[in-house]
């Protein structure tokens, strides 16, 4: 029997409506310290809604969130970041025309007097954070739009690492990437695991998730349909679970 302290985050009985759409119908979701959870399910299953509640983008209509055993209210993305929850959204995590260092420190710029940014610190720390992830880029001044898809995810993940995230949420990080870039991103995630950071990995692609996650949560139509450990299943088993749960009458 596990004690509550093993959990980094615990969401209990989360309900969410969008107007007349009942997006989450009482979902429990938890992540242990240092654990990587694959969150899978079809489009519209409620994965993104659940995660956006955790990252402060939406607020739950009902239900509680516990972080490190404490009950917390996450009212904004800033609240979430202050707790140590960093989210890497599919394509939305970065401002394409801004430089790498400005992206990494977006919203948390180190400043000298009067709010003037400390560019030297930003540049050095950015390059250091990228190097930690095994990513070597020419200059911190490059606009993000000039990077490859994999490198962009790297910048977003480096940002999470730099700010000592305890939980990194990756929302479809491998969508629209080439095979080589996917491998790159998975390697970044392994680096997070080595640093004992908890990871939630949201994806359509069971094979990408299967490589790195230790536990899988399957969602369909706003409900949690299954919660299985990696050793108790296989990619085929998971894929059947997703299919089956999508057709279960609610």
């Amino acid at each position, binding site marked *: 029997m596990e004690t509550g302290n093993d959990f980094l985050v615990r969401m209990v009985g989360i309900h969410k409506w969008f107007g007349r759409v009942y997006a989450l119908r009482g979902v429990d979701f938890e992540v242990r310290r240092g654990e990587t959870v694959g969150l899978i399910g079809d489009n519209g299953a409620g994965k993104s809604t659940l995660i956006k509640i955790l*990252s402060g983008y939406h607020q739950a209509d009902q239900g509680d969130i516990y972080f490190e055993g404490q009950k917390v209210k996450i009212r904004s*993305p800033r609240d979430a970041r202050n707790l140590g929850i960093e989210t890497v*959204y599919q394509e939305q995590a970065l401002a*394409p025309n801004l430089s790498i260092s400005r992206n990494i420190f977006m*919203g*948390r*710029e180190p400043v000298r007097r009067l709010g003037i*940014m400390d*560019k030297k610190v930003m540049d050095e720390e950015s390059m250091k954070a990228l190097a930690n992830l095994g990513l070597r880029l020419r200059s911190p001044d490059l606009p993000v739009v000039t990077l490859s898809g994999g490198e962009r995810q790297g910048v977003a993940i480096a940002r999470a690492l730099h700010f000592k995230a305890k939980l990194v949420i990756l929302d479809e990080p491998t969508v629209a990437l080439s095979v080589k870039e996917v491998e790159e991103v998975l390697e970044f995630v392994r680096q997070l695991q080595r640093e004992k950071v908890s990871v939630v990995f949201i994806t359509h692609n069971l094979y990408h998730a299967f490589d790195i996650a230790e536990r899988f949560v399957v969602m369909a139509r706003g409900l949690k349909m299954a919660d299985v450990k990696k050793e108790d299943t296989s990619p085929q088993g998971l894929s059947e679970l997703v299919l089956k749960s999508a057709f279960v009458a609610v």
Partner: protein
Amino acid sequence: MERFTKFLRQRAASTFLVFVGLVIIFSLFSPRHVFINARNIAALGKLFPDLGVVALGVGMLMICGEFDLSVASVLPFCAYIFARSLYVGIAPVWGMVLAILVGCGLGWINGFLTVKTRMPSFITTLGTLMFWRGILYVWSQMMPLGIRQYIPTGSSFEKVFAGTIVGFFPVQSLWFALFAVVLGVLLHYHRFGNWVYATGDNRDAARAMGINTDWVKTLCFVIVGALCGFVACMQSVRIGSFAATQGIGMELRSIAACVVGGTSLRGGVGSMSGVTLGALTIPILDNGLILLRVPVFGITAFIGLATILFVVLNTYVERRFR
């Protein structure tokens, strides 16, 4: 060469080259080279900051991903507040403070409407453009209001906002330079500037990173309003009166100046130096074409053409050398 291609990679680089070209052409071909005549330069330096200062704010707002069409009404509205306050016996300095505060307030309304209704600011500020002009016409009955009796020529207030330095250099240009530097520092070196870029470039990312994008946008609208209030007073002092026609056409000319200076209509891209350049280029085109004896009413056609050409050129050069 390395230096040169790096320079060309700047979005407004080609505007700069064309700007230099224009100055040379106008200098050579205007009758008796009147373009570079000291008096013409002085006149330009006196007039261009009216549009220029407003354009600086509009540029920042556009980088933030929004437009403000209402500047053309906010400006005369503030000018009327200024003139009125002089008539009720308020000192010019406080009248100016009041006008700027009203400008801030009108800017805040623009921001509030845009942020709360989630409508494009093109629509909300089109609405306030017409609304405030209508209110102004009714309130002022379109009558001009002379203010020379309150701010006589040679008074210190007049000197600060419409005088010259060493008998030649118009102070308006200095005000423009001051605003350009202050807003440039704010946009490029201050953390607020990074929020402005982030908000305009990718609002969702900015929000996810904890930036209050609604607040950032509203503040940019307020800055534009404040600048309108400032220019309203500066312009009124120069022409010695309030005129209901002040500001007409400024909404699109300020956007044209920003676009010519390499500001993207989609937000997230642009620079203060670019906007400064654009704010200089449009009036110089105006002035040079008049001196070349182009009929005054035809000049708009040239400005329109130039705006399109500049954007095409900037985009092309940027792609080519990236």
